[in-house]
């Protein structure tokens, strides 16, 4: 009987431990083999994505619909972001993507503004209508020295 209680306690400990690990992995990390079937990728080309990191959120009207899966450099010095969004989300092909930030030093995120086209993006297609990161330095110099350019 005593042996029995011991084994049960150890079993319970293992379950609690693995649940905690599961929580960390599923809630905080990104488990690709679990989420890949429910998402698809749209590539978006930007002139400048300074400050956008892998894992940054993709939002529509302030609602998180996905995340940035990869940040790469495409041809002609354009930055390509792989936007991983929910499969159920239909993105019209005349939508616009812009880099925004939460507060002045906050994290950067990608905002999608939907267009009105009937046709939607298919997985892997490229979105070119984009608005790049605001360059804080040039913004400040604009305020400080009037219109610099």
């Amino acid at each position: 009987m005593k042996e029995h209680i011991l084994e049960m306690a150890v079993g319970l400990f293992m379950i609690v431990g693995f649940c905690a690990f599961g929580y960390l992995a599923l809630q905080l990390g990104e488990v690709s083999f679990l989420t890949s079937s429910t998402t698809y990728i749209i590539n978006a080309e930007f002139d400048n994505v300074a400050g956008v990191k892998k894992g940054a959120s993709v939002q529509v009207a302030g609602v998180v619909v996905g995340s940035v899966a990869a940040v790469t450099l495409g041809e002609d010095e354009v930055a390509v972001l792989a936007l991983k969004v929910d499969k159920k989300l239909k993105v019209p092909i005349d939508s616009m993507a812009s880099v925004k930030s939460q507060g002045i030093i906050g994290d950067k995120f990608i905002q999608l503004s939907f267009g009105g086209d009937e046709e939607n993006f298919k997985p892997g297609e490229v979105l070119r209508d984009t608005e790049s990161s605001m360059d804080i330095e040039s913004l400040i110099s604009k305020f400080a020295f009037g219109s610099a350019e």
Partner: protein
Amino acid sequence: MKSNSIANLGNTGLYVLTDLGRMTLFLFKAFRGIFRQPFRFKELVRQVNFIGVGSLSVIFFTAASTGLVLGLQGYYSLNKFGAEGMLGSAVSLTLIMELGPVLTALMVAGRAGSAMCAELGIMRISEQIDALDCMAVDPFRYLITPKFIAALISVPLLTVIFDVVGIAGGYVAGVSLMDVSPGSYIEGMRSSVTNHDIWLGVIKSFVFALLVVWICTGRGYFVREIRGAGFGAESVSRVTTQAVVLSSISVLVFDYLLTAVLL
């Protein structure tokens, strides 16, 4: 006088060298014990109960208070920049990558490591280990390997439990006591923690578990060979103190090294 001090230095150097070699062979034999038959599954369960289940309460309280303090302290600092929204990310990253693995390892070293060291030390001085040898029972397979495996199972699990409890503590401090919104705490956490961070924490906890169980069982096993330990009961108490101090320091050193290499 001068030549005497040089001789002492050489002596100490030789001692450190043999000690390190002894401990390395010890580690090798402990792992070899996994492949020796029969494997003592019941002893493994007993050890997981001792190291894992037995440490749950101390881990829970340490994690909860660490999380609460991180929440309050983080709120105080971030509030100055109007960046309370970052609280979730700050608390979760600190816990998962640093405090979770380190504090868990230190707690286990203090609670279970010291007990393992004293147990083996007493078994050594009362000739119980010699008795195993004489019965042709491998003391590594019989005594030490189950402790190694139990530590390698328990410590990572305790670490993730520490992480989760700590994050919950941070939530209580930030959201319930202060005025951070629940959504920004949880979203901040989700968007900033990556798989890489979680893996870093897990790898650290495995390395720390190995360090603690290796040093604590090794010191106890070699209680007679350790210089300046003395004899009898006193030697066990001295060696136990040494084992806890040594394993705590090596956890902190390896924490820095692993962060530097893997971050």
